[in-house]
């Protein structure tokens, strides 16, 4: 279990608490009134289509922009009132940051470390460790102006990890990385999670969130649509698509039987000879549909849900028109 890392005398609140946080850009509302908290040691996947308000939330949390209303606190410290104290135990990667091209990664990390008041020896040791972790050791003395977007993203992750933060705020952390780089970054995040650090991560990649996060929050049009633990949400009644394979090709009567079963919304033949059964409900309903199919005398050879529970949840709440 993750340890509580609140310093003595500080209010024992969660690492991230957002209370009615909203943001307007002129007449455009980017974020309505987001209330969300993340418990110590939890890794939260922050999901939503483009323009949902994810980056706005993260920028408010890291003091890059001011909220129009509400309050963001990190470890019980108001980010807008005391940004330096609030950000002390935070490492952040926001979008793909640009670095000073005239510096090398080792100098960039020294800059960040010295701004944080880390002793020089610790900066040197930690720099070697984090550069190795993000596979940039051989480039540690090269000027960043020579770097690709993926290398800059790796450096961004390295600088976020430099001071061993208790809270990591990651905005699309694998953006710009190749598949191998993505897998390596996911490994890094998983190991941080094992160490009990709190992770607040936005991503478009649902598989990535499923692998790394144990809680999710889904945002759309600046409003929190759903939040909770991954397990809870995957058990929620919703719409699922099941792939069923039968011993023999289905007759016309069998198709009619399938369509008439309780909870079945739609039945379609798939290109591989199997049948896609769209049902309204979660795991309980899946079990009861399978029982009904067997009771109806249809001989099933395989029966499984297609796509991930998170994908279904996402598609259930985010319309096609929401993708900007």
């Amino acid at each position, binding site marked *: 279990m993750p340890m509580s890392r609140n310093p003595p005398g500080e209010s024992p609140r969660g690492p991230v608490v957002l209370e009615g946080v909203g943001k307007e*850009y002129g007449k455009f509302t980017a974020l309505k009134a987001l209330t969300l908290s993340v418990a110590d040691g939890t890794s939260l996947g922050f999901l939503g289509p483009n323009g949902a308000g994810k980056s706005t939330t993260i*920028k408010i949390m*890291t*003091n*890059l*922009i*001011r909220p129009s209303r509400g309050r963001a606190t990190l470890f019980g410290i108001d980010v807008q009132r005391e*940004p*330096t*104290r*609030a*950000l*002390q135990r*935070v490492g*952040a990667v*926001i*979008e*793909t*940051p*640009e*670095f*000073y091209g*005239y*510096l090398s990664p080792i100098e*960039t990390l020294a*800059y*960040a470390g*010295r*701004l*944080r*008041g*880390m002793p020089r020896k610790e900066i040197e040791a930690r720099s070697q460790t984090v550069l190795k972790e993000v596979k940039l050791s051989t480039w540690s003395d090269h000027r960043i102006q020579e770097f690709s977007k993926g290398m800059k993203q790796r450096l*961004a992750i390295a*600088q976020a990890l430099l*001071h061993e933060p208790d809270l990591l*705020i990651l905005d699309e952390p694998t953006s710009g990385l190749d598949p191998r780089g993505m897998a390596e970054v996911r490994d890094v995040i998983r190991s941080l999670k094992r160490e009990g650090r709190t992770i607040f991560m936005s991503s478009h990649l649902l598989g990535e969130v499923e692998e790394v996060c144990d809680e999710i929050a889904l945002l759309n049009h600046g409003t929190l649509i759903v939040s909770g633990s991954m397990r809870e949400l995957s058990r929620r009644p919703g719409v699922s698509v099941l792939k069923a394979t039968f011993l023999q090709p289905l007759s016309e009567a069998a198709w009619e039987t399938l369509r008439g079963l309780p909870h079945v919304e739609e039945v379609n033949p798939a290109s591989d000879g199997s049948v896609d059964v769209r049902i309204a409900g979660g795991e309980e309903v899946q079990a009861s549909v399978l029982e009904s199919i067997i009771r109806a005398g249809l001989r099933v050879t395989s029966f499984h849900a297609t796509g991930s529970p998170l994908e279904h949840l996402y598609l259930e709440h985010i319309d096609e028109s929401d993708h900007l």
Partner: protein
Amino acid sequence: MSASGWAQTFVVAEYEVRRYLRGRRLLGMLLLLALIIGLILGLPPALGLDYASSPNLFVASFTNFSSLLIVLSGVLFASDALVSEHEKRTGYFLFPNPVRREVLVLGKLAASVLTSFAVVTLYYGAASGAALVVTGGLTWEIWLSYLYALAYTVCVVGIAFLLSASLKTTVSATVLTFFLFTLIFGIVQGVLSLADVDPWFIPSAAAGIIGNVVAPSVGFGQGPGNGFGLSFVPEVPTSLLVFAGYFVVGSLLAVLLFRRRELTA
């Protein structure tokens, strides 16, 4: 684990100076400096003219270019210091660190002032050295001219920082800083003179003290009517107060604007 505001200011200044040293700007500035010094020292013998015999008049040929050099320093070492963090997105690296925006402004301001001071010092060092060799002496007025040049540098940097905090692109901040000092202030000065108003509060008019102290062309405080007022030079204390005023107001406004500015790019 936390660095003090002063320690952070020093770190920011150190990295800014490193930026100037590694970039081509300082090199360009030094080449320009060498060109100006070379022309001032090389042209008279090439044209068969004698150098001025008094140290003050000799250095006056250098002070003619002091203001331009100072403005160029402000353009190169100050005008994009703040705006570039937003435009070039380096703010995404810098701002989430536990460092106050005013600390960032102070550190960058210190770096700009120190780098510009170094350029001015080098220029006056060359001028004084040449004066010593050619005329065999130096005067107190040369020192005063140098100090006034430093004061004007501070004024230019303050205004450049204000523009850097206000404008959206490095190009607009750089171009406006340059033309403000080389053109716009001159036009305002001319118009004010035509209206019989002493342009004592215009920095470029106040900068007249830099050359006037070694080679007075007009009396201090002389008003309109002297060369359409363009050669009006305020009294030294007035000019120094004007420099200080622009620096303080420019820097404070730069801090306020930079603090309020959001990183949305």
